[in-house]
């Protein structure tokens, strides 16, 4: 079975500060990991992915994520947060033998000016 946990419902940071949104996963085999962002009344938008290769992956809008196999984690990071980064963030995993993706419960990021 594949699953994702996002331990924080809410993350609050001040504009200009670094941000981290946490994600851990469980899957059989090597994982395919994704981060998506959802703005109000919109569908999910792809941010970045890890399939193989370098553990640090860079994505849209200055976001990056670090794959840690030993800790089964894939935390989303950004060096300097913007107010416009405020949104709902979802981590997702797909196993190599699976046809579908499983999502975490989401973390609401609020960046205050």
């Amino acid at each position, binding site marked *: 079975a594949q699953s994702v946990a*996002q331990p924080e419902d809410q993350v609050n940071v001040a504009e200009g500060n670094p941000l981290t949104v946490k994600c851990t996963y469980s899957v059989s085999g090597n994982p395919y990991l994704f981060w998506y962002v959802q703005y109000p009344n*919109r*569908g*999910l938008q792809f941010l970045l*992915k890890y399939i193989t290769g370098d553990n640090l992956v860079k994505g849209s809008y200055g976001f990056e994520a670090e794959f840690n196999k030993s800790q089964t984690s894939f935390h989303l990071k950004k060096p300097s947060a913007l107010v416009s980064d405020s949104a709902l963030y979802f981590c997702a995993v797909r196993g190599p033998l699976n046809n*579908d993706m499983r*999502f975490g419960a989401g973390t609401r990021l609020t960046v205050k000016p």
Partner: protein
Amino acid sequence: NAGVTQTPKFRILKIGQSMTLQCAQDMNHNYMYWYRQDPGMGLKLIYYSVGAGITDKGEVPNGYNVSRSTTEDFPLRLELAAPSQTSVYFCASWAAGDLYGYTFGSGTRLTVV
């Protein structure tokens, strides 16, 4: 490209009524998915399809049915609406080998009263 198109955007149903949520994609993706999003629960997979004529149950299929007669369309049918089906429904598509994950529709907000 239109991407993934969902209709309607909003709908209010009475208990026991039936309706079909429409989903169409113009990217020739073979995989299509239906998720529901409940507050604090993330996205739960209802049904998915790996190609025309092939469908399979996800995590929460009870109360729903799907069909996939063409590559482009993947409608979701609610036969006897119940208040527990009040949710936001998202359709997504994916092409095998596409490393950018799913493309999501903008969602259908359904309220059952």
